[in-house]
């Protein structure tokens, strides 16, 4: 009994320390972001550099959205003489391949790649496509994204910095009003990008390449060994291999792209389980090499570990709860002072779903979404659901006999958009000045 109580105290203390450290980290991010200092802004340089670009769009059963993303990419304001779009049909069983072929026949800048065998999954598809890409910069978009016309120029601007190996734009859920979950995820994404990613970039820490709405130098990708087809989160894996070898990841807040967030808890659960396993796999694969990384600063090493281990905080928290329950029912004297100090930090972290209220609220304010700030208390629901899903995933990961998940199949989020073939546009917000522009034969938009 004594040992049990001691173990519970150690466990609870460890939980408090871990969550407090994470809470302070996100608190600092929010404070820094609010101060609006951004010395690494490259938006004024957009359009002044035009390297050759290959856009990779891996697809598996994406007939609902394939036409939208391909049309949006064709409509991008970039010199077609320096642009190619590689649409990868990875063993689709619907009309995805047919749609890709239609676009490839119509637009010479689109190349269709059809895969019918080999290792499955997004990473494997990207490996095949990257080998065929001729561009200096490889940009990636998932099939359910709709890039704006200037997106390519926004994303390639940071590559004028020779230290930048990869770039990440911002993902904005477009269906935030479709369900409570989607609304809460919109808040979460906003905090993660508007505050988290931007702060980490400004502070020269570890902004993450997210595998979509982003890009990587082709030469750098080759130098670090290419895409890891074995990883569930090939983007996280690539991020850390890039950083360890001395490259930087740039974050472009202005490169905003709509995505579809999960609208049901079941879909969200599948998504976050995959992220949790993928991240944790990366943690186990890379943490030793990460700590030894000779091109990394101490701050980068520490922040990178926080990023890699972020999903481990969920089981740590659950163990802390269990420990506190045991201690509650045992007649032990506890340090009131320590409890009073720890409680607000733990509570702050508890309701933020790995981001503090301040970070969520700051992001909503920066996005001028003041009304959505009032949704913050409801994020508790998302937090409990996510914690449960992550714990379940990690339990299977550690105790399910699958330390290495092995080759993966496609793990996609459900698509909610109607497959009516029309180009996805907001319509009512279309800028009138843009309507005055005409398309030149080489793809650039010019004034009439």
């Amino acid at each position: 009994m004594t040992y049990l109580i001691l173990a519970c105290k150690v466990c609870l203390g460890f939980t408090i320390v871990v969550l407090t450290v994470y809470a302070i980290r996100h608190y600092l991010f929010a404070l820094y972001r609010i101060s609006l200092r951004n010395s690494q802004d490259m938006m004024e340089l957009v359009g002044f550099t035009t390297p050759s670009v290959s856009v990779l769009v891996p697809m598996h059963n994406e007939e609902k959205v394939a036409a939208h993303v391909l049309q949006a990419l064709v409509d991008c304001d970039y010199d077609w003489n320096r642009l190619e779009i590689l649409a990868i049909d990875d063993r689709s069983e619907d009309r995805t391949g047919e749609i890709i072929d239609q676009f490839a026949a119509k637009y010479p800048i689109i190349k269709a790649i059809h895969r019918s065998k080999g290792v499955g999954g997004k990473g494997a598809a990207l490996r095949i496509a990257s080998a065929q890409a001729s561009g200096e910069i490889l940009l990636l978009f998932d099939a359910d994204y709709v890039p704006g016309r200037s997106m390519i120029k926004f994303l390639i601007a940071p590559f004028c910095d020779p230290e930048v190996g990869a770039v990440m734009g911002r993902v904005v859920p477009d269906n935030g009003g479709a369900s409570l979950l989607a609304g809460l995820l919109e808040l979460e994404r906003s905090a993660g990008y508007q505050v988290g990613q931007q702060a980490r970039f400004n502070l020269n820490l570890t902004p993450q390449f997210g595998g979509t709405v982003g890009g990587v130098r082709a030469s750098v990708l080759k130098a670090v060994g290419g895409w890891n087809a074995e990883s569930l989160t090939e983007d996280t894996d690539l991020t850390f291999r890039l950083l360890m070898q001395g490259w930087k990841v740039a974050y472009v807040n202005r490169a905003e792209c709509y995505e579809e967030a999960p609208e049901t808890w079941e879909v969200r659960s599948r998504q976050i389980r995959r992220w949790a396993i993928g991240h944790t796999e990366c943690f186990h694969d890379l943490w030793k090499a990460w700590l030894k990384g000779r091109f990394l600063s101490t701050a980068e090493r520490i922040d990178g570990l926080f990023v890699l281990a972020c999903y481990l905080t969920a089981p740590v928290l659950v163990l802390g709860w269990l420990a506190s329950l045991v201690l509650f029912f045992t007649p032990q004297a506890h340090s009131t002072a320590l409890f009073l100090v720890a409680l607000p930090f733990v509570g702050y972290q508890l309701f933020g779903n790995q981001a503090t209220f301040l970070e969520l609220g700051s992001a909503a304010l920066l996005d001028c979404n003041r009304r959505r700030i009032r949704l913050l208390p409801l994020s508790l629901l998302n937090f409990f659901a996510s914690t449960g899903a992550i714990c379940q995933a990690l339990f299977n990961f550690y105790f399910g006999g699958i330390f290495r998940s092995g080759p993966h199949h496609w793990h996609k989020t459900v698509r909610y958009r109607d497959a009516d073939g029309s180009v996805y546009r907001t319509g009512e917000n279309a800028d009138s000045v843009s309507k005055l522009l005409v398309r030149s034969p080489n793809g650039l938009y010019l004034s009439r």
Partner: protein
Amino acid sequence: MAAWPFVLFSIVFAALVCAHFLPSYRAWLSTCGEHPADIDPDYVRMEDYFARSFRLKMSEWRKLPVYETLPDGTLMIRKGDERIRVSGPCEYPARSESDDILAVEGDFRCGTDCAFNREIHVRGNAFIGPGTRLQSIAVDGNLQLGDRVMVTRWADSAGEMELGSDSVVRARATSGALIRLRRGAKVGSAFAPVVTTSTRDGEDEVISTEAAFDRLEIPASDGVRSRIDAGRQRRIDPKKLHRLGADSWIYRGDLNAAAPVRVKTRLVVWGDLVLPAGSIAEEDLKARGRISVAQDSVCRGSVVADKEISFGPSSRFQGIVHTGRTLRLGPGVVGGARGRKVAAYSAGILELAENVTVYGKVASGEHVAVVTGK
């Protein structure tokens, strides 16, 4: 022990919890079905966006009904609480003031110390008297801003634009031909085929600086070696040079060669970088500290630094320049070339000396200033 205190406590606690979530629930109901963020996927980034947008709106406003015609033929149009004054060529005397949006079908002139608190669109040329204050102006011809003119927002001209001494354009100055900045002029950013502080018409001859120098190559082409400047005891330490990728190298520490260098590859310096006079950088450069490019040097790729960047007299850059602090372009610096636009940006102040020419854009998080005599 009576249970009612606990029951009462539970009810009050439950009520407080519900009260905590009630505003959230109501916020959810009110935002249900909305787009959380408005992204315009049709947006195409343009340097002269404000001017284009204003000209487009003016073309629509001109079609609104005229509510009054003045004796001089000026048409008055009302748009909500605002008035639009449509006139032919006009000249405003000194110390004139106007709160109307002006649409001038011809040349526009104003005397000293005038104040125009709304936008101005000029079909012809515009000559703004010294000390005048404008909100914003779009000119289809040439625009000349006199000394000490203040434009609180943007200025655009299809023809040439000249900013007089100590004049200020707080936001963006754009021109389809040329922007000339006189001593003391300041802008937030300036974009044109040619942006210059030269006082002479015509382009300065760009003298080739690739004279026959005995340049030290980085990385060395004949293997790793160190070279010591016997007089100054400065060297490039090959132990600090690491390959980052197939076409990129890292130098860990300050790089301050005493002799001219030819940097043949992309180079990232973890410290300050000094390129002596007559150096050539063929690819992109990055320093986590400062970059100092001495006179008559050429940078063919981009130049990026976390701290200050300075270009010495008659040096050239042919790619993007970006710094997290101050950028100084010394006398005679040339950025870009005809038909090959570049951009120079500093998060702090961007200082332009005399006879600086940039083909493209100069921009700053604070302001771009013409500083002579340094």
